[in-house]
């Protein structure tokens, strides 16, 4: 868990040609995200682990495609998921970002927003029927 100064330090990322200052998820937004990703927790956990920086564009889009494929049961969930993490609407993500950009920022955003806790809470809630 992040403590003290590290917790308060804001994260800035480059996405869609903009410099975005990411707001930390509030408990309520976190619960919303948790309900969104709950059904995909096991696959998402695996998928997020394989995303690394310095990927070739083709490989990056392939890996993002894997995550999007993981969440294909409800179209739009993946974009909404990324949108909630970076504080943008799903439509904005779809229109302004590329796979490579997303792969570059996701690891830092995932860490900053404590996504592992979202996944832990999601699996504790027993919303796993789609992901297993």
């Amino acid at each position: 868990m992040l403590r003290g100064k590290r917790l308060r330090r804001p994260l800035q990322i480059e996405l869609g040609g903009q410099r975005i200052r990411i707001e930390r998820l509030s408990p309520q937004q976190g619960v919303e995200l948790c309900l969104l990703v709950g059904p995909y927790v096991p696959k998402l956990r695996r998928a997020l682990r394989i995303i690394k920086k310095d990927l070739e564009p083709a490989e990056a889009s392939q890996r993002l495609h894997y995550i999007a494929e993981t969440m294909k049961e409800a179209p739009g969930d993946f974009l909404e998921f990324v949108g909630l993490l970076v504080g943008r609407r799903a439509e904005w993500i779809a229109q302004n970002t590329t796979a490579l950009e997303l792969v570059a920022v996701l690891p830092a955003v995932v860490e900053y927003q404590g996504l592992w806790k979202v996944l832990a809470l999601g699996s504790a809630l027993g919303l796993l029927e789609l992901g297993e």
Partner: protein
Amino acid sequence: MILARCLKERTKPITVEIETKDGVRRVERARFGLHLVLGENLKQLDTVLEDRESQDVWELMRRYFELATGFEVETSVESFEQFAAGLLLLWALNSLFVPPPFLKDPQTSARPQRLLPWDYEGRAAILMVHVLMRTYGWSLDRVVNLEPEVGLALISEILVDEQLQQEWEYGLSDVSRVYNPTAKRSHFKPLPRPAWMRYGVEELKARIPRNMLPLGKVIDVAGKEIT
């Protein structure tokens, strides 16, 4: 084992450390009264999770956090990460280490329950407190401050006592004997017990006619990732 563990807990209460805005705060495990209230909250959470209404889920999670810790989420928690970490710890802290058999009753949990005319919200918790107060003549304060496992184990014993007493009285009456005219004899018909007091019932094997079984090569995809 329950009693030994609870006596140990009395001398050294189980606590967890929760990260908050103002630093780390120590939270003690819920006693019987609060445990029942938290249990009601979790039951409601199970119900609203079926609809996936994020507002309802959030409200119930927030209420659980506030009841279990005694401090408000808005003023004490800074981020979701802190909230989730705290909530997961609290769930683990307040779960029973020996769940009593009557809480695992498959019949009562699986069947949708019909509301009785005298039912009201939270009656199950009050009923448990009432059973203990009535049987032992304890005060409300004393009952709600029991260790959760001890309170539930005592209720389990009270229910067993009552059932055995009823069986004894039933066995003495005429209605427990059914006359079989073909055999010209009466036989004893025992008083039915609740499911949690019966020995495990074997699961019936489903018999499938041969002509309905699959033919040809069967590909087992269990354990393989489908892409």
